[in-house]
């Protein structure tokens, strides 16, 4: 290894890591006093620091409007990190980590605040050349603040990397950079998403834009690609010749939990389907990428989105989508109120807390294979999973007359289940002979449990995502066209519901054409969701 090659790669890192190395930078968090910062971002950064993964010299600047000092801010963060960190907080490590945390007070719309932020960041670069003029701006504020923040960043010149403070000519050639991380929701519909993308991309290039979907940071979501493409066994079957249908479910027992202010404007379709579930759909149904570069992977995901059969009108929406809203019921034996009785919820709210839909992907691989997507609050059990249901074996030999024929609930088809959370893992249901003299066939489950087989706890999703943003690896972030395609798909549904609701509210059409079904909290959703599959001769998999 010759000295001249040290500049292109660090020879000491060989064998220690096969991932891009994160670069020290100034991480500016907008919305620093909010929930996300305290519950997720800072605990994630602390865990990275404790595990030695955080680039040394990383500086965190919290940008928010409340008046507080650096020390006050650090104290508050220490308290919340002790509550939410996945590992105990060690004092020595916290002291070392937190001394690089600062607080910058400003309103989001105040240009002066950004000018002074720029000065502060320049000074930090001077004080610590390892920062290299690199800035990562994290928008953890409410979505209504994104536009003023981005515009002010541009006005203050913060969309360009700072001036690295080094006399080394080679180092100066290395790029300082300026990146932006945007939390979901990215827009509220296609028009607003396009508008927001325009604002973002007029300030930051697409390669410097990181749209977070934290589901993608989960180990199990990342494992979908590994399962499909690192094993020869599945790919030959992963198509319409062998697969009958796919179900993607994200169920919660929780209700709106104090987020009514946001949820009333969002609903389950925008909150979960447009982003998380559609991301899982693309990972499950994509073609193998040519390589593992971010764009190759994301290109294939976008192809799935482009192949989604759009719902052209309200009739098709009504036929393929069921929306629901939880009524009072019981969760784990304890009574709970219905959605309209929750605090800050309009007693006549038409916001859906449940969505079930049937979608089709019209390409060679998937034509004719329905994908059923289901998401809901206050359901019987919490869990997110993808289940791939294979077609039945030919009705000959063992499948001609089996014990399962009289017990359809037991099922005879093979089912591969990828459990995203909790109880992360993969299981495969197969048919087996039941011991005994008679020929009886019954299902058995082969089960791999991620957390039990790999004893060490996985990093949290935000740890992985923050590291990737600092490393410049956008693979696990949504690209502009992914977001817009997903909005284009759900917009038709939202429009059909919205137009319908308006008709109802103005008494033009008091009977809403697209019903919002009640379901008791603690059930599996409205009966109409079961009928959606029953119409196809199928039923939902019980989690």
């Amino acid at each position: 290894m010759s000295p001249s090659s040290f500049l292109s790669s660090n020879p000491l890192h060989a064998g220690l890591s096969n991932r891009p190395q994160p670069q020290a930078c100034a991480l500016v968090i907008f919305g620093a006093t909010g929930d996300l910062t305290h519950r997720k971002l800072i605990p994630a950064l602390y865990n990275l620091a404790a595990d030695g993964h955080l680039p040394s010299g990383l500086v965190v600047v919290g940008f928010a409007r409340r008046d507080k000092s650096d020390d006050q801010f650090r104290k508050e963060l220490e308290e919340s990190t002790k509550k939410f960190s996945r590992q105990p907080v060690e004092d020595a490590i916290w002291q070392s980590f937190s001394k690089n945390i600062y607080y910058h007070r400003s309103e989001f719309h105040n240009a002066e605040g950004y000018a002074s932020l720029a000065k502060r960041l320049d000074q930090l670069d001077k004080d610590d050349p390892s920062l290299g003029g690199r800035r990562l701006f994290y928008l953890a504020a409410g979505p209504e603040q994104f536009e003023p923040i981005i515009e002010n960043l541009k006005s203050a010149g913060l969309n360009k990397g700072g001036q690295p403070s080094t006399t080394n000519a080679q180092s100066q050639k290395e790029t300082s950079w300026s990146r932006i991380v945007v939390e979901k929701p990215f827009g509220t519909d296609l028009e607003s998403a396009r508008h927001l993308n325009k604002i973002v991309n007029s300030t930051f290039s697409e390669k410097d834009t990181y749209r977070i979907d934290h589901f993608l940071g989960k180990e199990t979501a990342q494992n979908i690609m590994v399962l499909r493409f690192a094993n020869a066994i599945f790919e030959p079957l992963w198509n319409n010749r062998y697969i009958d249908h796919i179900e993607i479910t994200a169920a919660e027992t929780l209700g709106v939990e104090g987020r009514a202010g946001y949820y009333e404007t969002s609903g389950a379709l925008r909150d979960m389907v447009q982003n998380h579930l559609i991301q899982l759909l693309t990972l499950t149904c994509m073609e193998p990428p040519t390589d593992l570069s971010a764009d190759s992977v994301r290109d294939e995901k976008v192809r799935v989105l482009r192949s989604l059969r759009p719902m052209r009108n309200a009739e098709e929406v009504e036929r393929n989508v069921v929306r629901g809203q939880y009524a009072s019921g019981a969760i784990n034996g304890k009574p709970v109120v219905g959605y309209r009785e929750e605090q800050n919820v309009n007693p006549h709210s038409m916001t859906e807390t449940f969505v079930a839909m049937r979608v089709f992907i019209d390409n060679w691989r998937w034509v004719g294979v329905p994908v059923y997507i289901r998401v809901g609050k206050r359901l019987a059990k919490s869990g997110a999973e993808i289940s791939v249901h294979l077609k039945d074996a030919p009705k000959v030999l063992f499948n001609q007359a089996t014990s399962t024929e009289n017990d359809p609930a037991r099922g005879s088809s093979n089912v591969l289940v990828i459990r995203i959370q909790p109880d992360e893992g993969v299981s495969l249901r197969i048919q087996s002979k039941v011991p005994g003299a008679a020929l009886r066939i019954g299902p058995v489950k082969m089960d791999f449990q991620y957390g039990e087989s790999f004893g060490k706890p996985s990093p949290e999703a935000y740890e992985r995502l923050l590291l990737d943003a600092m490393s410049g690896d956008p693979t696990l972030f949504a690209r502009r066209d992914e977001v817009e395609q997903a909005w284009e798909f759900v917009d038709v549904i939202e429009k059909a519901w919205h137009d319908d609701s308006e008709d109802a509210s103005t008494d033009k059409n008091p009977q809403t054409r697209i019903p919002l079904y009640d379901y008791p909290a603690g059930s599996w959703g409205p009966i109409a969701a079961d009928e959606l599959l029953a119409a196809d001769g199928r039923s939902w998999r019980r989690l």
Partner: protein
Amino acid sequence: MIQQPETHEFFTRGIPVELNSIDQELKKLWQISDQIATRATRMNLVIYSAAEHSLRANTELVARIARQCAMRAIIVSAKPQANATGIRTWVNAHCQMSKDGKKQRCSEQIAFQLEGEARDLNRLPSLVFSHLDSDLPLNWWWQGELPSASLEQLFAWIDRFIFDSAEWNDPRKQIGILDSICAFKPVLKNSLSDLNWARLLDFRLALAHFFEPECTRPLLEQIETVELLHNSERPESDLHLLLLIGWLADRLGWKRVEASGSAGSGEVCYGFEEARVILKRNGDPEGENGNTLKAVAMKMRDGSRFSVMRHTQPAYLFTKGHLENCAKIIESRIAPVVTMNENFTANLVSEELLYSAHDPIYYRALEHAAALLR
């Protein structure tokens, strides 16, 4: 805070069984009437030792390792003083509660005690191989001195070979044995796990980390001196120290020359064209957990400095860099990758089993270290 699962530990050898009924007896372990247990296994781990009382000590180690790595463990103890010839066998399970508290996850253990002629190493393959879990990798931990006997049949099947060069009395001879093992199975060079090398992981990570940013990368070619602060009794044959030097020499392309300048009292010096390495004793008692290395301090030609120091109570690494070109001091504290508590050895082995790389870096560092042996 995420609650850690409860652990039920069984540190006895287990249930004594007949050699030819091991599989049957293992199945019986799973017939637990009022509990739900899952047999979990990702790998086979065989531990061989000829030391006294190794069976009990290794059972305890396996119990701790199994918390992180589901496995089938086979412990082989060659009893040093034995009058009779024979093989005694036990089966055991190491269980811990799953996160939801609903079932136990258990790893199996088979223990063999070899006495008399049964200790013949050539009989090992036939004893062990018939009890491996099929389709899963074979990790073999050879405790103590490496076998001088040619055990090609054994090594042909080993996927990862674990040992601890800190246990070697004659490092030069042991390295020779390791060379001949690797000559027989060259691919094993990439799958060697020396626990003495694994103990250096924190220092290697800290050093690699410091030189990662663009402003410090050029300093790699400016390293003038490296001081290793240690408490080894015989540093010139302490592979824990020499491996770190060997790693730097291999990674940075250093060429060995006679050391220039005199060494102080108690110091050992190694010379390279590019830099000088000095081993300095700090006078404290022998290191904990085999860690004789206490600190590494580097001085660059431009005056910049960087040091990594191991702190023990509480355990962390303290790093400090002084960059001359900007008069900046950078400090940080990093938690050790492998938790340094009473289970350190088990934690170290778990880390190797789960995360060690398949690359020749260790072997090349060892080759350099061998050249430094005095």
